[in-house]
């Protein structure tokens, strides 16, 4: 079953066309990875889905609802959470307040929160501190934790491992594996190993176009294809 279906999307920024005829399907319950070099259009794709940028053409269907044209707050309320590249943490608020904002009703589900504490120890440690004092890796954790503080239908995550140390990346991978058990994830990444470990399906964006689309298993086994598309082999 398809969770998200993108077809023929073209998004322009100013006079420049950033996405051309982008089409792919994200299956329900899987981790779908969007790969590509800098400037390929990965972030634009996520922002187009989230309603922050309006596609010029094409259709974006979430289950059976057309997302294109909706305000991003409506999209969010459908259960789609977005973790942007810059994490989107409110530095002037405390960690607790950051998490509180992400809840619909203004209170936490205790068991769920406890599980989050286990997955992200820093969250518990700095609960009452201003989010601005967290380190880069901790901020990233907070961004992800905030996205899952309540059950979501789908997560859109933009380059969560950027600038993080390998140890934290490993920890993040474990967290994602657990989240993926219950949520569909559309993951944008440049870190191929991370993507390889988590993803089941993938698409490669190049200059705003889909250069490849298929299963991760097949892609992982084909080093020539990897070389060609990503200029590296695993």
């Amino acid at each position: 079953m398809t969770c998200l279906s993108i077809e023929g999307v073209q998004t322009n920024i100013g006079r420049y066309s950033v996405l051309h005829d982008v089409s792919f399907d994200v299956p329900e319950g899987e981790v779908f990875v969007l790969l590509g070099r800098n400037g390929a259009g990965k972030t634009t794709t996520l922002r187009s889905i989230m309603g922050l940028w309006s596609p010029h053409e094409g259709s974006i269907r979430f289950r059976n609802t057309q997302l294109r044209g909706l305000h991003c707050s409506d999209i969010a309320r459908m259960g789609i959470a977005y973790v942007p590249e810059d994490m989107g943490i409110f530095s002037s608020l405390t960690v607790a307040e950051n998490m509180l904002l992400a809840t619909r009703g203004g209170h936490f589900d205790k068991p769920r929160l406890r599980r989050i504490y286990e997955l992200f120890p820093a969250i518990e440690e700095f609960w009452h501190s201003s989010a601005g004092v967290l380190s880069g890796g901790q901020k990233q954790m907070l961004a992800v934790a905030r996205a899952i503080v309540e059950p979501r239908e789908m997560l859109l995550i933009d380059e969560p491992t950027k600038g993080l140390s390998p140890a934290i990346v490993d920890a993040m991978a474990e967290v994602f594996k657990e989240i993926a058990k219950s949520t569909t994830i559309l993951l944008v990444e440049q870190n191929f190993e991370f993507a390889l470990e988590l993803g089941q399906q993938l698409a490669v964006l190049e200059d705003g176009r889909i250069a490849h689309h298929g299963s991760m298993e097949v892609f992982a086994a084909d080093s020539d294809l990897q070389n060609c598309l990503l200029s590296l082999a695993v």
Partner: protein
Amino acid sequence: MMQQLSTKIGKLGGVYWLPVVVALIAFVLIKVPSTWATLTVAGLAMGMMIFLMASGLSLVFGLMDVLNFGHSAFVSFGAFIAASVLVGLSSWLSSDNTLLNMVALLLAISAAVMFGALAGWFFERVIVRPVYGDHLRQILITMGALIVAEQIVLVIWGGSPMSVPRPRMLEGALIWGDFSVEKYRIFAVILGVLAYVGLYLVLNLTRVGLLIRAGVESRDMVETLGFRIDRLFISVFAVGSALAAMGGAMWAGYQTLISPALGQEMMIIVFIVVIIGGLGSIQGTLLGALMVGLMGNYVAFLAPKLALASSMILMVIILLWRPNGLKPALK
């Protein structure tokens, strides 16, 4: 070394010490404790009233990215409406019955506040909303609105200064030995503190306040969390205008003589305060207001010709040190 000093000062409470420093320097210069005390209370009172006038401007800009050059129109209208009510109820004001006094005062302030909220609502819909996102047009159109508002004040209340009666119970001063403190000023300080505390509580303890504080930092991000923050805008705008009107009402009682030029006079002071304090945070606005109020009074005593210029000099010095003001909202 400057960096170390900055960090040290920051740890001890940072820029919040500035008004205290100013007061202490003034004490050294003025020498006479009773005079200093009178001036300080006057400065605090003035600062609080200016805080009321300026807080709306600061928050609206922080949250909505809208600079309202017509903001002081609310101050003007607040002052004149309150004045008219007070004049109308002057018999209540001059009676010995403190209850009548209070009711009259309350009515005057409430009239100003209600007008401010309604006018703010109207202003946001008609003047501001069409020019969202375009700073240039915002500046121009709100300036135009200021002119129109001032002219309307002229048409309704005429061009000559208006005398404002004060309630009997607030007339006069409390005297201890050499120290005398005007009752009205104490009232102004109390009201200002209450307003600040109220704002602070709403901003920090309520969900709405949380949204506002987050929205000041990043409007986009708040929306991706599922909130339609533009619905909040109009309320914030209305509250800001209401506070400005309240400030104007208090100012009318403080000066006891108001003229239509009030709007323009206060506009400059409000702007200087907001520049000094930084846009988007009530802490910054309070700081700026207290500084300007205190400095204004001290300098008026020590070197009268430099009174208004002193605020500007203060502004320049602070801008050199902190180009975005003392405590702007994080962006």
